């Protein structure tokens, strides 16, 4: 399972046949393992790693630090669920340290995101404060180097 996850994490578009060959198991076994991983909630989906800096129209992403007051009985879950319901919100994490929720938001412009924070996030009842940090450049994302392909500095032929 671990080896399969590693391969899918490297490239989710390997065919089952290719995965089977690399792992030394049958295609049926690959299919079964993938199904198990999906059913048990280990694999939650398959998406491309997009460098939004290069996409047109370009997207912006911001990290918004939220300080919130947890609700009795619900802790942080209630506010987290409210936040993650917004379509603009890419990810939400509960954090240790200086703030409570890390919220990644995408939009088409600084304006978009600023308005979203001002109009949607800040007014939520338990939000105490927000701090918005825009991502200026992506170096590495989901384990993939974004800026430029690392060069192979080996000579092309070496016996």
């Amino acid at each position: 399972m671990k080896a399969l996850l590693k391969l899918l994490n490297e490239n989710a578009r390997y065919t089952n046949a290719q995965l089977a060959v690399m792992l030394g198991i049958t295609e049926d076994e690959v299919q079964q393992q993938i199904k198990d991983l999906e059913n048990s909630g280990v694999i939650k989906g398959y998406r491309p790693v997009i460098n939004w800096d290069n996409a047109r129209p370009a997207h912006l992403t911001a990290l918004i630090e939220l300080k919130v007051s947890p609700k009795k009985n619900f802790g942080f879950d209630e506010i987290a669920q409210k936040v993650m319901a917004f379509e603009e919100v890419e990810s939400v994490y509960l954090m240790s340290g200086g703030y409570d929720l890390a919220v990644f938001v995408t939009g088409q412009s600084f304006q978009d995101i600023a308005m979203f924070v001002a109009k949607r996030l800040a007014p939520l009842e338990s939000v105490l404060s927000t701090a918005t940090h825009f991502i200026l450049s992506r170096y590495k994302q989901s384990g993939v180097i974004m800026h430029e392909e690392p060069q192979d500095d080996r000579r092309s032929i070496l016996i």
Partner: protein
Amino acid sequence: MDYNKLINKSLLDIKPSGIRRFFDIAAEMKEVISLGIGEPDFFTPWHIRDAGIRSLETGHTHYTANSGLQELREEISKYIYSRQGITYDPRSEILVTVGGSEALDLAIRSLVNCGDEVLIPEPAFVCYDPITTIAGGIPVKIETKVENNFRLTARELKEAITDKTKLLVLPYPNNPTGAVMRRRDLEEIAEVLRGTDIIVLSDEIYGELTYGDTPHVSIASIEGMQEKTIVVNGFSKAYAMTGWRLGYICAPAPLTKAMTKLHQYAIMSSPTVSQYAAVEALKNGDEDIESMRQEYDRRRRLVVDGFRSIELDCFEPEGAFYVFPCIRSTGLSSEDFCEQLLHSQHVAVIPGTAFGECGQGFVRVSYCYSAKHLLEALDRIERFLKSLRGR
């Protein structure tokens, strides 16, 4: 001035291989997808690099003892014991060299007198023959065969031995075929050598990279063989440390002493920074070896399967990081195959003949590349074969 008159005659006699031309074309071609590189694509693990950096920061910038850091030789001794169950005295039986390459050079030059014969199973790495020639020895090739899994057989060995035989090179796990020798095969070789004074030069640089059920067996671990074996190994392949240039020799004390003498005059001592890094590699590098080995294994399966599915016979390699498919079904020579593949699809693989005449009909394909790169190359090779067969 006729410089050729000045250059050492034996060296002059070593003709640059005809394959040089092919390499030059490949080297200059842009956008070439190479499967030609014989070194890991992995970077040296960070903790090993850190050990090198730390040695510089703490001012270890001097020569070491000629035979290498005592601490490193002790670690090498422990390592061999853990893998092969044999003991080498770090003080008198281990020598740290500038890569496995220097080790091979030292071993051959320290033993071979003018006219001595050196047995070289082929296909094999390219250096044994010229070093033997420069030393005044006579390279005697033994052709290993795909039907024997490219292993050296006792019979082939017996037939090649004469009263001039000084040395047997044993290059397993093998570059370029990926063949390995099992314990049984080695016992049969040992049986032939018993009672002779022939020394075995066992080039075990790929010893950590085997993919069968059993790990690599050194011939030195076979009963009675340690006293007549020079083991060559190094850090390049196992730990992805090619650029650090560090290898070593384990051999009986009198031979180690002779090789150290040569090493001392030619090299003085191996790079200090690399030796400190190597200590760390041996102490804490086993997990790195294993994760790289598993990655190589996955690629190996992918490439072997890839060649078989495009109907090229492909010997199943059990070691190193090469596959050696047979291209005879195309009707082309190895050189023509490689040259046409390079021109039409911009894929570089190496003609089997680079590794000895008997490599004719084969090509060497390295899988020191990402799976993505390998799949792209296999696609292009398939297109090339289709265009050949469509004719």
